[in-house]
């Protein structure tokens, strides 16, 4: 099952705008991608409440996982997004 572990790159962490951008991108993927921190229970990447509740800050290690057709591409797209500083992206 495609899996990637990356560090959150956004200055404000996975909150506010970075979280909104991430969740919106996750909703566009053809497969269900999950996200977790450490060994905690994974949450759907397209769940705003779930993603916020991770409490991931800049530099927090998060793991993405997905299964099925297009899973690798979906995980890669979202992992790349997480590594960027989404606070610096123009609205």
């Amino acid at each position, binding site marked *: 099952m495609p899996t990637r572990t990356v560090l959150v790159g956004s*200055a404000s962490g996975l909150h506010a705008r970075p979280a909104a951008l991430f969740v919106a991108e996750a909703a566009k993927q053809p497969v269900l991608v999950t996200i977790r921190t450490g060994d905690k229970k994974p949450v*759907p990447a397209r769940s705003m409440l*779930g993603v*916020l509740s991770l409490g991931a800050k800049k530099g927090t290690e998060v793991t993405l996982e997905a299964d099925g057709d297009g899973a690798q591409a979906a995980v890669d797209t979202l992992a790349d997004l997480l590594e960027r500083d989404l606070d610096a992206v123009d609205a």
Partner: protein
Amino acid sequence: MRELRGIGASPGGAAGPVYRLAPPPALPPSAETVDPAAEKAAVREAVLVVAADLTRRADTALDATAAEVLRAQVMMAQDETLIDAADIAIDGGADAPHALTDVLAGHRAAFEAAGGYLAERVSDLDDLRDRLVAACLGQPMPGVPDPGHPYLLIASDLAPADTAGLEPDLVLGLVTAEGGPTSHTAILARTLGIPAVVRCAGILDVADGALASLDGASGVVVAGVSAETVRTVNADRLAEIERRARSQGPGRTRDSHPVALLANIGSARDLTGEVEGVGLFRTELLYLDRSDPPSHEEQVAAYRDVFAALPGRKVVVRTLDAGADKPLPFLRLADEPNPALGVRGLRVARQTPTVLTTQLAAISVAAAATDADVWVMAPMVATAAEAAAFTESCREYGLPTAGVMIEVPAAALRAGQVLRHVDFLSVGTNDLSQYTFAADRMCGDLADLLDPWQPALIALLATCAAAGVEAGKPVGVCGESAADPDFALVLAGLGITSLSMAPRSIPAVRESLAAHTLDECRQIAEAALAAPSPEAARAAVAVLRSSSGWATGAPDEDIRIRG
């Protein structure tokens, strides 16, 4: 037409349709028998209604940050996991409002556990819960109404949380049934320059959408006025605002005694329009919500942004004001049972001196790169020895003007001794009130004790101002009280040399000062100091102030030179 009487809390006239602030819905007792299919449908319907309402508000929000918060709430409302979890709760016997409340309570706990930024967003979750529950129960949306056009906001009373997102361009005026001239509503209205009447019995009987007018000076509210009256009242108000907006130039009394009118800012973005200078540059923004302290380079860039915008003008930088009540993860401060009285402000440097020295070094580099007149001050100083140590640190980093904030009564009582070691004082009246009256700033029930017109607070201000006059050093005030046009006269009369406030409040204070001589301000200050209570102090000043002609609102020609 029906005339209602209240207490004038913020001067000015306003008129328009009234809309009420609906209270949060009360969760009814759990239903005994539940039709799961109907409750699940109710959850979906509530999500649709709330998401549509929040989306509309986001689309019309004038403030980009407010719009972002609203869009995030829409995403939370539409979260599939919310509906899934609610369905499970309903299968377990809950009705729709209880199911939604329980599910959101779980996320609330996770937010609180995460701390920092997320803990502060708990109020967004609570607001979402209230909206969903209200939608389930068929009640009006709680919170500040958003009819999509300017209106008069009416309420039983307003709590700080209700008014955080208040849009001054849409809220023409405020009328509350309860509260008093020192309540949060009144303070907020004066700060935002919104006319307000408090303690107006009967206002809640006026129907949403009905036209009404209010006079924030006399406290008279008239319900059922004509559209013509609404136009006239608002045209007069607009003319007054435009006249104030044209007022420019440095603050001074009618006889040209200077009282600098400075801005309170958190970043360069808060600098709107022309200001004499900045009296309080809060540096906390840079530190919030991060696991490591900001680097030297990052700090230099942020400070330079502000300094570069104010060539030749004064900028007073307050060093980091953090503590257990405003926690920063990298400081690793221990949990304190009483954070307001714990290790905060300058006291942090006792354990972690590098945070302060890094900041002073960055301020120094940024100051050297620009032409701003950079002053630096420390928060939460209690003794002359602490003040001396801070000045010494500033000098080591080549910062020529070092001062301290007076927020602790101990420092106010010994203002003269403190001033021997520093170049200036800045009185933070909000915290000085909190510590003088042993009354938590966040405690609404104690609002009367936190009134800046309390004679004990004025006495401490007088001590600080007198020490400044004797030492020939500036003593300014930053805090709620400086933005009150009447209290500004008291402060000028006491010998305070600068007033720092939200930029929006400056024109009214400028106008007030320009209408009085320094001698009149001194009489006003004496009357306030001699009064036995805040009410008596206000009343005494109102009498003196109207006898000198300010009540007519005629501005001095001198302050309109750029009009």
